[in-house]
């Protein structure tokens, strides 16, 4: 079910402010693409434009194309609600629904779109998703307890379970481990590695080692200066970007000379 994404000449605006300019990027199915770059260069903005979530900010809009398996998700007849049903997202800070149990958190997306639950038992989906997120063993005896009662790392895995329960075609992750301890971070990284078999994954990270460990492709974004739009400097196989980048700025960033 994993699908490819092609970003073509994408500009993203917040009102009058052009936050990102001229992004061209191919994201392969069943692979992990990492977005790296200094703070404010537009990584989250580009990521959120892939499921049109940036549109919830008043005045935000895009120019250019984002193709999901060849179909432009910004075509006039496309409803962003449907796009977000196809493209799951995991946020920087774990955000399980505080008023819902672990179980209800996992099936929240299925309850929105009944057709996705058709012919499946919710119990099975919950177990499969929690197993998929490596959380099943830890929570199987307390599914009715509130999701907010879990540790930060468990909450984040619950959010991943919630995202994969609807079997999305793409999974977007915005610094999913930055609020977590090293052990939980490794657990998330292992999980990303496993999820790659079924999903197209895009992950934003500030952690160079993490990008090197989990990703197949790396895209480096940079900022020409304050108030300038962010740009995609280069992208390519992670191995190449980390060992022999074409651009000087990439090399400087990766080796920690700035940013």
């Amino acid at each position, binding site marked *: 079910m994993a699908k490819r994404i092609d970003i073509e000449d994408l500009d993203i605006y917040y009102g009058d402010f052009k936050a990102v300019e001229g992004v061209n990027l191919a994201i392969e199915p069943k692979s992990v693409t990492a977005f790296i770059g200094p703070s404010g260069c537009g990584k989250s903005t580009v990521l959120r434009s892939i499921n049109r979530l940036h549109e919830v900010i008043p005045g935000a809009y895009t120019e250019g194309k984002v193709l999901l398996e060849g179909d432009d998700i910004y075509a006039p007849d496309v409803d962003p609600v449907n796009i977000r049903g196809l493209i799951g997202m995991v*946020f920087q800070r774990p955000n399980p629904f505080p*008023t819902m149990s672990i179980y209800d958190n996992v099936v929240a997306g299925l309850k929105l779109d009944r057709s996705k639950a058709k012919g499946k038992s919710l119990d099975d989906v919950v177990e499969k998703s929690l197993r998929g997120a490596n959380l099943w063993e830890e929570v199987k005896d307390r599914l009715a307890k509130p999701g*907010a009662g879990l540790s930060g790392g468990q909450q984040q895995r619950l959010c991943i379970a*919630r*995202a994969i329960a609807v079997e999305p075609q793409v999974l977007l992750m915005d610094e999913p481990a930055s609020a977590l301890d090293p052990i939980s971070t490794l657990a998330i990284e292992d999980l990303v590695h496993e999820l790659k078999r079924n999903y197209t994954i895009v992950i934003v990270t500030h952690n160079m080692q993490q990008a090197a460990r989990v990703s197949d492709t790396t895209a480096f974004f940079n900022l020409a200066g304050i108030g300038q739009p962010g740009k995609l400097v280069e992208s390519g196989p992670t191995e190449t970007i980390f060992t022999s980048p074409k651009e000087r700025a990439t090399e400087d960033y990766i080796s920690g000379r700035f940013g």
Partner: protein
Amino acid sequence: MGDRVFTNLTRLAGIFVLVLMAAIGAFLVWKAIPAFRDNTGNFFTTQEWFPDASPPFFGIAALAFGTAISSVVAMVIAVPVAIGTALFIGFYASRRIATSLGFIIDVLAAVPSIIYGLWGLQVLMLHMDGITKWLNDYLGFIPLFRNEIGIYTKSIFIASVVLAIMILPTISALSREVFLQVPRSHREASLALGATRWEMIRMAVIPFGRPGVISATMLGLGRALGETIAVALILSAAFEINWHITEPSGNTFAANIALKWNEAGPIGLSALIASGLILFIITLVVNMIARAIIAKHKEFSGANG
């Protein structure tokens, strides 16, 4: 150190409030004793009010009924509209409309109740015939809406509508504040799952805001239960339990106290205070129930949001 001072200070404030409540309760009981002692009617079931007759004969049945039914009807009208308005302002209206609507609601919440009462008496009452007749014609099989005497003024129903309009801005303004507190991360979590705006409201906003909205509602209910002037102006102050709420009838604790206080003799005053004591207890109980509802959901509250 600073912490300890602050803890003690807040504890002191809490104790002070409790002591104050107890003092008010004790005062009311003390002043009500003569009325309880001399009453030859049944305080809870009698639908008459002659405390200064000899022997005194009175009861709060009609008052309790009028207070309860007018508040309940007011809540039924006001709460959905208030919450709907708050949601509209928070999640649907353009920024310009949201700002002006929010401003209007804040102003309306600050309008004194006598203004609402006068407006209800002078304006609303004249225009209520249509809707009350309609209620009688089409929903008359429900006793509540049946009108057997063909007069539609000075009714509990009109008082309820005025109460509803009066408490609506309060509930709406507070609910809007509560909805604004819902963290963006929760809203985005539901949107990212493919929720429409309404589904996002159901999934993330309402559950998170529920305790706050309950509190806002209780504040509104408290105001409706205790409202004096607006109701006193409109009602015909009859001492009877009449389920036909569109007929001229009805009375409430607060309105009765306001209307009777000046002409009351010693036992009359005591009887009015006794009725005030009941209102005080009802308000306390209502608030305790609200607390209980909120506490029951505590485990699933957004406290660590």
